[in-house]
């Protein structure tokens, strides 16, 4: 069973020629002055430790504060980083496009491997005050 090493949110995910990841604009919350708030694109990037030759389905479910599913992304984790004495690691990434947040509140991103729950990311979506320009 794959074991999650880390997962984070970022606005862009790049992979270079050496198969190394760059995570651009890591974030842990979203703010906006008006709602609904549209986020054009963001990534859920995760690193897993897996057994030899193991592949799995990485899934990220975006759930709104009311408990309703807002988005569902799936990816087959196949980009393996190589054998080590204790197994492989691999990166799995899902891109959410044109996500609309209708109201402020704490959203959740549920992370699953082969439909088995692995982790929850809490994503506060905040109504920004007029004198606070931070995003």
């Amino acid at each position, binding site marked *: 069973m794959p074991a999650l090493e880390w997962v984070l949110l970022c606005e862009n995910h790049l992979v270079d020629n050496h198969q190394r990841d760059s*995570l651009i*604009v*890591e974030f*842990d*919350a979203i703010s906006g002055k008006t709602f609904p708030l549209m986020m054009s694109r963001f990534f859920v990037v995760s690193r897993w430790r897996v057994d030899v030759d193991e592949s799995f389905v990485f899934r990220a479910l975006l759930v709104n504060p009311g408990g309703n599913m807002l988005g569902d992304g799936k990816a087959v984790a196949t980009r393996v980083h190589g054998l080590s004495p*204790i197994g492989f*690691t691999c990166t799995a990434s899902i891109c959410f496009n044109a996500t609309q947040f209708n109201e402020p509140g704490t959203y959740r991103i549920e992370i699953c491997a082969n439909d088995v729950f692995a982790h929850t990311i809490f994503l506060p979506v905040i109504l920004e005050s007029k004198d606070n320009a931070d995003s």
Partner: protein
Amino acid sequence: MPTLEWALLCDSHEIDAAGKLNLLGEYSRISSLTFPTVVPPSFCVTKWTARPGENISLSFRLRALLPTTANVDDVVTNTDSFANSKALVSVFENFTYHYFPIGGAVLPSPGEYAFEIFVNNTLIHTIFLPVIPLD
């Protein structure tokens, strides 16, 4: 007690003009033609949840797991202490980053290494780092 959100190794990091973190060249293994070799210039970047003003005492240790004959004297250890200086204004302010330089550490032989993170002398997280010979 601060909570570790994630920890990863990368070639470099930068804060953009909006104050957002970019992680460049994340890696999870090291390959080398010859041994001993050294860890390339890079960082262990960690993200923490901590109370505003809370002091975080961190220690880092890189040690060999396999083979057990590796010279464990050739490890890097260091201790750092810093305060989460952000004021409690919003949920944004509970997070803080730490960047620990790890370049130059000597890796005497191929094998499995562990990069260990301690808070107040308690081991809270291990990043496994395979070191692989190139043919």
